């Protein structure tokens, strides 16, 4: 089988296209299709809302797109148990609407929630600013079912919040990038929706005081759910995307809060004192806060993943994972003329989006230097977005790690045909 000469309308990323699309509406049908195609040596490329299509290595062999959006039912929602079981093709936004009707939510945010499927969010281990207070996808998943290239349906975990029977397949599938199988069903823990949320948007003339400020916030009397650090151009982009009239032009630290109205107000007062050195302080509440949360969540994905907003998109982006205490120095070392930088500073995560108009060669030099810095600080640096021709030389998934060999063996054990998302991850 060859790559299609004339691309149809189903992209696989990196300028490659699917030879066909399978869009089953039944999970057994999906598993059967995987088994049949894998036996023929055909590559299998799972897709949901296609918001992370460009992420990963170059598709390595011609194949078929496996579209999960036909599987989008709510399987079971016992609201009083605070769990929900859904099929993978449901969008994150639709899931949140279902939960919202019962006063609940999944305490997880991801870019392009209207498009992103819940299966894709978990397969790519997506998260947003509030991971600092509310945890990561791995903290919310208690059960999973996936279809394998052997044509089987495999499940792990269950539907109860505490369960240690068997190996933790829900954790293994979270962040597996479609390389083990196609997630078809997830059971998730839900939480009550908070009565109120707010953000305290603080502006700073420079980065210098911020490590001390973050140290203070680490033991703050408040309990922030998000600590977002933005360099100048990222602050401008986020302010613009939110549509709010927020002061930008310098470094911004946005502190997120949730809880009852009383608690949120009390914490905003306390923060005013703890952020005393800021040159400006704007509390953002109510629907304005919702818009700012949305902008902070969507921004790291850049314009591209969100599709058709008419914004210039960056050709190259990175995500560094560091110890939180290394974040300020790391961000300070990045030229704001070349990069928009946003950090989930409480978690040590730093996103960089190459600014439009900057030569890829310059950005690539920075990536190499920043990765070395990240690795020597005990972290790593991956490239969620990278021009196809640079992918082989720049290394999408960061500096090699000691456990990659084991990860590849896990991949071979679950997908012996090597059919799942070939070339992209493992």
């Amino acid at each position: 089988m060859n790559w299609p000469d004339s691309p149809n309308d189903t992209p696989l990323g990196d300028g490659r296209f699917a030879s066909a699309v399978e869009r089953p509406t039944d999970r057994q049908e999906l598993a059967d299709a995987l088994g049949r195609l894998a036996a023929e040596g055909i590559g299998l490329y799972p897709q949901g809302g296609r918001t992370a299509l460009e992420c990963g290595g170059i598709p390595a062999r011609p194949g078929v797109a496996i579209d999960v959006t036909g599987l989008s039912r709510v399987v079971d929602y016992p609201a009083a148990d605070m769990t929900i079981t859904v099929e993978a093709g449901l969008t994150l936004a639709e899931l949140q609407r279902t939960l919202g009707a019962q006063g609940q939510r999944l305490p997880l945010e991801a870019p392009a929630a209207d498009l992103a499927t819940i299966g894709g969010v978990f397969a790519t281990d997506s998260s947003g600013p509030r991971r600092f207070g509310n945890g990561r996808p791995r903290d919310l998943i208690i059960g999973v079912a996936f279809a394998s290239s052997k044509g089987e349906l495999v499940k792990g975990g269950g539907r109860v919040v505490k369960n240690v029977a068997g190996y933790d397949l829900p954790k293994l599938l979270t962040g597996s990038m479609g390389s083990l199988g196609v997630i078809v069903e997830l059971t998730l823990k839900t939480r009550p929706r908070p009565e109120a949320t707010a953000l305290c948007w603080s502006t700073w003339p420079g980065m210098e005081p911020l490590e001390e400020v973050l140290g203070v916030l680490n033991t703050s009397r408040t309990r922030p759910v998000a600590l977002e650090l933005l360099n100048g151009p990222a602050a401008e982009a986020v302010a613009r995307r939110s549509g709010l009239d927020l002061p930008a032009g310098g470094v911004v630290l946005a502190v997120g809060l949730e809880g009852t109205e009383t608690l949120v107000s009390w914490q905003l007062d306390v923060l005013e004192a703890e952020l005393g050195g800021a040159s400006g302080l704007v509390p953002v509440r109510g629907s304005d806060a919702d818009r700012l949360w949305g902008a902070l969540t969507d921004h790291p994905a850049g314009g591209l993943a969100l599709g058709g907003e008419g914004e210039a998109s960056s050709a190259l982006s990175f995500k560094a994972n560091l110890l939180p205490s290394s974040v300020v120095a790391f961000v300070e070392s990045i030229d704001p003329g070349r990069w928009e930088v946003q950090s989930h500073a409480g978690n040590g995560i730093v996103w960089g989006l190459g600014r439009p108009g900057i030569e890829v060669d310059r950005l690539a030099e920075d990536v190499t230097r920043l990765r070395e810095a990240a690795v020597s600080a005990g972290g790593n640096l991956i490239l969620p977005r990278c021009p196809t021709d640079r992918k082989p030389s720049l290394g999408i998934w960061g500096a090699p790690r000691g456990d990659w060999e084991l990860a590849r063996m896990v991949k071979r054990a679950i997908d012996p045909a090597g059919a799942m998302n070939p070339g992209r991850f493992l």
Partner: protein
Amino acid sequence: MAVAQSVDISESLRAELARAVGPENLLHHRDELVVYECDGYVIEKNVPDVVVFPTSTEQVVAVVRLCNTYDVPFVPRGAGTSLAGGTLAVGGGVMICLTRMKRILEINTRDRYAVVEPGVVNVWLTRALAGSGFHYAPDPSSQTACTIGGNVATNSGGPHTLKYGVTVNHVRGVELVLPDGRVVEIGGKAEDTPGLDLAGLVVGNEGTFGVVTKVIVNLTRDPEAGRTFLGVFESVDQATETVSGLIAAGIVPAALEMLDTLMIQALEEAFGFGFPTDAGAVLIIEVDGLEAGLEHEAEAVAEVVRRNGGSVKNAIAWTTRKEPEYVAIWKARKSAFGAIGRLSPTFCTQDGVVPRTKLPHILRRITEIGAKNGLRIANVFHAGDGNIHPILLFDERDPAQVRRVLDASHEILEECIACGGSVTGEHGIGVEKMEFMPRLFSPSDLAAMVALREVFNPQGRCSPGKMLPIGVGCIERKSPGRHAPA
């Protein structure tokens, strides 16, 4: 049939092991080994041929390599508090006891992690963090004895995991000695290490993936304050309806534990903590967070308690978890198993999970099952998680009672499965519950798990005969319980 068997440990292997760990860190006399014949699950026993106490990763590697050279099975062990036979030396061989690797290597509150050796006792880390504003969240009832390495093996829970999550939610990475002696760093101090979440997979492996020799754990910010109180009820039904009512009302307590009347009486006889002995059931309810919000939350909880016919007693407002009343109430809860001896010479603790709304149902069924089998059953458990721990009381000298306990246990766990739950919330499958795995999982689910085990442990030399039933003969259980502490 019984699993007891033995491998031939040659003199030369014993001598080499002694050289690897030092003769002072090796036991091989029969009378010394008896202590290691079982853990908290006493039904099946088998003495290992040798027990070694390595003090470093290098020594663990050396021991594992020797086991490979001599083709001898080995099993890691922490404090031996497992309740499902997770550390049973099935097939004898070498037991690698990690209690002498007990250093806290690093505490970093700015970056919210600590690095510990596997033999560090859970509560030592809590003590080391006192006053720092941070704590290690998983707090099993056995936390004064159990090790963090053991917690990683079984993905331990505890009362406060309702709000804060179980062990897997708090492990960032491990150093693992693979069963072939290679050492691999999994995960790390920074979050989101690229690659598969192997740290998530390793937690809860029950010793079947190798020997964990270092653990990087999350540190959690302390709550500013809390309220802990008793909800006192005339009946178990009222208490379980209250649990369902709290969860349904969108209240997430820090802890929500239930004790029934039999358990209350035993605790009062043993320790005199001041629980109301005429109550049908008691809930220990704890909320925590910012002081400014606690009165509101506590009142909302009290309202649900009252609506279900209960009353609120012994309200404690605390800020440090060190107030004497606070310490007393949790000491009482965590001493529950110790008090059982007042009721019965032997007991069997079960560990099932049901959806929280099914608690009233499962507790009624437990009562019926107890009555049908002529058994007394006490209940003390993590109600907020739906994680039940019925304690079946019996006298092991009476074979008829023993049979009835086995039948009743089985029936309770079957009912948990029928409710959409699980046969273990925190104790593990071990050797005890392997027969239930095919009830919870399909052949393809189990085949995937076997394939994963073979990635780490292809020869099956590490912890053979655990967790996954495939290729393991049916084990006939002759006795279901353990001895009450004297």
